[in-house]
């Protein structure tokens, strides 16, 4: 559980999660900044450079050897999209001292390693290394182009882009290939400094923290000392940021690719200015399409045998629900009709108390499991942090328990179709 959360400096927060049931420590640094067309690509390129060398671990080879020495600690970095924010994520997992022969101060090593990577990158004479930059530009290009390789994600991303266009949440988190060539070793170093001085910085440490002065480790770290206090520039993610109008015409998009199976994505808007619809939305979503007792699973899959995968997802930050399923291309209309029928059924109150209790039970057991899953626990607290919500797991469970059928019906009537996207082969 989260035992401490404190500001090291203005805009730079540490979150300590105590857990002694795992064999590993996790240290995670998040840099959160608004998603913008002008900066998305350069920001996406930064983790590629940061993982390539620091002032003390000058090459990728040195970094990799160091990780191997740390009993194969796994280090990864990447980009996330959280609402209208772009999040640069750096993550390391190492086994803790209880499982190594000698006392290696693994947690300290792990924490210092991740801080070295993110905050002590190899910039010399105001620029990144040219050769490394050129390789990593190619790599970023490849990542952007590889969006098409996973057709489910491709279809989902394209539906989002149809709804929001090339701004904020509508942007692909890795940016645009055409912007890559404009980036120079100097301009990227400038972008890095700009980002590091202004973004929201969160440091999560999870593991057996008893008897370890983690606060001291963080505060005495040279790389942390260098950071300046800031008024963090990011977009607070919560329900009230989004206020929507009903779209005049529902967009119907069809794209053709060489696929065996059609991928249907439906984007729904939640037309509400209310602040606290988040939990009722979760319950609604569980009834509609999250889990095996949901209406989509039962009707699209089990009754009509149209799909193997059929589900819905609530995106809190943007007040959307997305429905996704993989179907035979010729069954497009049939599937769409059944999905629409399910949405109408909830609107009209055609669902049972059992559906509600199944949904609640499903959500609550998921929440209870969070504390025993190291990754999920961090993800949960990140979500809270970015939305400035201070609810504990227990409070979430209580609110879920109290949601009524009337509230769910009322919520269902706030939903409007925005986009129906189909990735097809003809």
């Amino acid at each position: 559980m989260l035992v401490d959360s404190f500001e090291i400096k203005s805009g730079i927060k540490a979150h300590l999660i105590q857990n002694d049931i795992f064999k590993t420590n996790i240290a995670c640094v998040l840099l959160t900044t608004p998603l913008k067309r002008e900066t998305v690509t350069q920001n996406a390129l930064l983790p590629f450079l940061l993982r390539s060398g620091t002032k003390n671990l000058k090459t990728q080879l040195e970094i990799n050897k160091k990780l191997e020495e740390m009993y194969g600690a796994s280090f990864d970095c990447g980009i996330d999209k959280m609402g209208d924010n772009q999040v640069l994520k750096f993550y390391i997992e190492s086994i803790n001292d209880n499982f190594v022969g000698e006392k290696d101060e693994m947690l300290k090593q792990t924490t210092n390693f991740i801080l070295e990577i993110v905050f002590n990158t190899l910039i010399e004479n105001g620029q990144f290394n040219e050769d490394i930059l050129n390789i990593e530009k190619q790599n970023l290009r490849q990542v952007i182009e590889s969006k098409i390789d996973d057709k489910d994600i491709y279809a989902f991303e394209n539906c989002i882009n149809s709804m929001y266009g090339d701004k904020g949440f509508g942007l692909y988190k890795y940016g645009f290939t055409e912007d890559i060539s404009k980036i120079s070793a100097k301009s990227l170093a400038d972008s890095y400094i700009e980002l590091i001085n202004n973004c929201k910085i969160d440091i999560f440490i999870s593991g057996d923290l008893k008897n370890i002065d983690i606060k001291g480790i963080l505060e005495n770290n040279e790389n942390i000392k260098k950071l300046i206090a800031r008024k963090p520039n990011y977009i607070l993610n919560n329900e009230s940021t989004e206020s929507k109008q009903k779209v005049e015409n529902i967009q119907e998009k069809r794209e053709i690719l060489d696929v065996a199976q059609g991928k249907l994505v439906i984007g729904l808007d939640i037309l509400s200015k209310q602040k606290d619809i988040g939990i009722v939305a979760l319950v609604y979503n569980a009834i509609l399409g999250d889990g095996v007792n949901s209406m989509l699973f039962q009707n699209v899959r089990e009754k009509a045998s149209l799909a193997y995968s059929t589900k819905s997802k609530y995106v809190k930050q943007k007040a959307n629900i997305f429905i996704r399923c993989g179907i035979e291309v010729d069954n497009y209309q049939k599937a769409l009709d059944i999905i629409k029928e399910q949405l109408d059924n909830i609107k009209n109150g055609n669902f049972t108390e059992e559906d509600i209790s199944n949904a609640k039970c499903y959500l609550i057991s998921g929440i209870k499991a969070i504390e025993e899953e190291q990754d999920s626990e961090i993800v949960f607290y990140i979500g809270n942090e970015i939305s400035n919500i201070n609810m504990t797991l227990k409070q979430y469970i209580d609110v879920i328990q109290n949601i009524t059928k009337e509230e769910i019906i009322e919520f269902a009537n706030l939903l409007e179709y925005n986009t129906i996207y189909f990735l097809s082969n003809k």
Partner: protein
Amino acid sequence: MQTIESSKVKEKIYIEKLENGLTVAVIPKKEICKKYVIWGTEFGSIDNNFKLTKTDQIVKVPDGIAHYLEHKLFEQENGKNSLDVLSSLGVDANAYTTNNHTAYLFEATDNFYEALDEFMDYVQSPYFTDENVEKERGIIGQEIMMYDDYPDWKLYMNAMKCMYKDNPINIDVAGTKETIAQIDKEKLYTIYNAFYRPDNQVLVLCGDFEVDNILEEVKKRLKPNHNKQEVQRIYPKEQEEIVEKYKEAKMDISKPLFLIAYKDKVETGEMVKKDLAIECICNMLIGKSSNLYQKLYKEGLISEEFGYNYEFSKTYAHILIQNTSNNPQKVAEEISKEIENYNQTGFNNEEFERIKKKIYGEYVKSYNDISSISNNFLSDYFKEINSFEFLEEILVLDKDYVEKVFKEVFVEDRKVISVVLPNE
């Protein structure tokens, strides 16, 4: 009762063979609320040909039937689907089928014993009707098509086809639309009675349990199966040689994907040691700190880590090395050259020790949660391996042995390459 224990990860497993032949493994974890149960049957997609010993009848079943059975076992006579029932109890239930086993599982924070009732009941009570078997055909058909859109899957299946002539590992676990069309309720009952016998199964329970108590709870829930059949599996004798060196496919993807595979001889005995040796070799040959990786990366020939894996069972064994590249042929050549080099020079000592440390840490990590502890045990059990041996063996693995394995296994004429290219 047998116990196996690891001082390295501080875990202990209690193993009991019950009267009816079922093996039960209990892994107690104090102070954890989650409980995890997995019930495995040694029956997978490669078991498509067998003899019923009572009648001497030889049975050949359609490809994909093990997986079809996995989907259908949830169906109950009272009209309910056990997956729905378990989900209503708030437990997370699932099932999967592999080449050599099928497993049913759930994870619970609450309602554990109610869930165990339902779980043990459905695995022991098949209920197949023409109607419910028919209903599943569309769903599994879509599952097959979903896999058809995964380039990685295409890559893997083509590599299997390159390596294996007769071993059914070269068929898709889920079968094809054509083969699943031949599946009916009679065939499902035949395989259920032939393979879902307690003596062909293992049940693993991990969580805050008292060993004797939970064994009693399991015994209470056992049911007799009067229809069970003794069987003898028939596996074709697989040639040592590969079938073809190269296969390519085209899909709408951004960059070529390739998989280099080495067909290995099936061995019994030192499997743990051999598996670890191959893991060390792959790390030193193409791992992120290897010379070759650094070189290929700087030349822009690869942009990410190689994936590598040694897959083996009682009937097949091979090494898989995977990555993406605009020039797969060149990467394959470089790897072959590097293999030749290391064959001459042997591996570096310091590097070897560092990689052993790395692998040790990775094995410790793989015991991080109750589901992976249980799943590790289950899949190793069907290979007749004690999972904990990996943690002991890695520390004492010697370089001479690793070099010997290297010379035997990474052999050019048992190498195949599978490539998936972008459509033009």
